């Protein structure tokens, strides 16, 4: 029986593992390769690694680091951060990465995303969208690399464009929830999962297994989380955890 995927999401900045809160205040967590080793031993479903400064600073992906990550993963690995061209994508896939996550490129050049889908297959391209809830309760898309906020009508247009470009998955991030351990935005997950035929990865706010289950019931095919898997307790002590398979199975099947 197919179960829903539960995916630790790791943020990298200048080679360090960090964690943000609402996309701000990066906190140093430790060595990413070590963290990936631990997640591999814990037999996680998948792993997503996002190098957050790359697009913003127009930097090349750190291929050496990505290769080190891939070398520790006997599970699927998604990489995101600064991938702008087919050549870069090709190089990253050859290092042993399964999927590439694009975010700012979705705003900059939808044609390149189409070409990536044609060349590597839709299953290897994940489009990530970050949204912020406005005071009126509607959702505004944000391009975090340029800190551009779009009006709420553009959200659906953008989503539609990405689906037409053929991306294999949509990763939906709730900016207000990032790093807060305050629970997922169920309304947002429901809204988007209804509109798309491809798997939805929801991310932001997870603080318990129960909330993972709620996200799945709201329509997420996969639930990603950062803080939940790297912090422990009220004081946010760094501790890498992941529930054992039988627990997830009992929870989600």
């Amino acid at each position, binding site marked *: 029986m197919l179960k829903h*995927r539960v995916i630790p999401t790791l943020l990298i900045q200048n080679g360090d593992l960090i964690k943000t809160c609402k996309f701000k205040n990066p906190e140093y967590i430790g060595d990413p390769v070590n963290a990936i080793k631990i997640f591999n031993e814990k037999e996680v479903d998948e792993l997503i690694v996002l190098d957050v400064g790359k697009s913003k600073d127009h930097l090349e992906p750190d291929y050496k680091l990505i290769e080190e990550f891939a070398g520790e993963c006997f599970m699927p690995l998604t990489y995101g951060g600064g991938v702008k061209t087919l050549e870069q994508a090709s190089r990253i896939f050859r290092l*042993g990465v399964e999927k590439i996550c694009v975010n700012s490129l979705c705003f900059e050049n939808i044609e390149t995303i189409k070409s990536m889908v044609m060349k590597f297959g839709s299953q290897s391209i994940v489009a990530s969208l970050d949204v912020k809830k406005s005071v009126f309760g509607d959702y505004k898309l944000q391009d975090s690399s340029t800190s551009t906020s779009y009006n709420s009508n553009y959200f659906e247009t953008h989503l539609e464009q990405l689906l037409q470009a053929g991306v294999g*998955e949509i990763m939906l991030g709730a900016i207000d929830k990032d790093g807060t351990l305050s629970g997922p935005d169920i309304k947002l997950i429901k809204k988007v999962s209804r509109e798309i035929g491809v*798997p939805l990865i929801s991310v932001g706010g997870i603080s318990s297994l129960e909330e993972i289950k709620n996200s799945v019931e709201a329509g997420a095919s996969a639930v990603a989380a950062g803080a939940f898997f790297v912090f422990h307790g009220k004081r946010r002590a760094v501790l890498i955890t992941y529930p054992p398979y039988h627990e997830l199975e009992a929870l989600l099947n």
Partner: protein
Amino acid sequence: MIVVIDSGINNSSSVVRMIQKVGGNVKIGSKPEDLKEASKIVLPGVGHFDEGMKLLNESGFSESIKECVLNKKMPILGICLGMQLLCECSEEGNQKGLGLVAAKVLHLNDASREKLKIPHMGWNTLDITRCNPLLTDDPEEQRFYFVHSYYVKPNTSELCIAKTLYGSEFCSALNSDNIFGVQFHPEKSHRFGISLMRKFVEL
């Protein structure tokens, strides 16, 4: 020597790493001559069926693979698109497949199925349908990682060694003599994949 074919669109490095992990002697084959040293072949693959076949045909790999598999009876393991390329043809494209097994490749969302999220992506289990050298019917549930939109439909049911349920059942692993194919990614399936790869290495 196990040669992992890299015709340009696959992520052969994950497969190579896993074969090394289980102690296999392995190299990447980027041109047909590399198959001269081969005692076994792994054909991984991601992407479009036509693109995969075009690369195998243009590089000359198609003929060399057929020679090794049909005449020299060399064991071959096709992974994901690699499994599909072993077949006669695919609904995904117009190119002819390698035709090493009597099977066709169909889209997962055919009429008999309920509306499914495509691609089929994530962990799923196997129902072993025939005794075979790669997969054993262990008491512990074995799970493997799948990412695909098309599946292999063998012309005869004997070819199938494992089935997987996604909407309805499809053939997730096949075997005919020295030819093996798996729709899932053993190189990305933790210890379950490691066990399968070890058995292939030890064949």
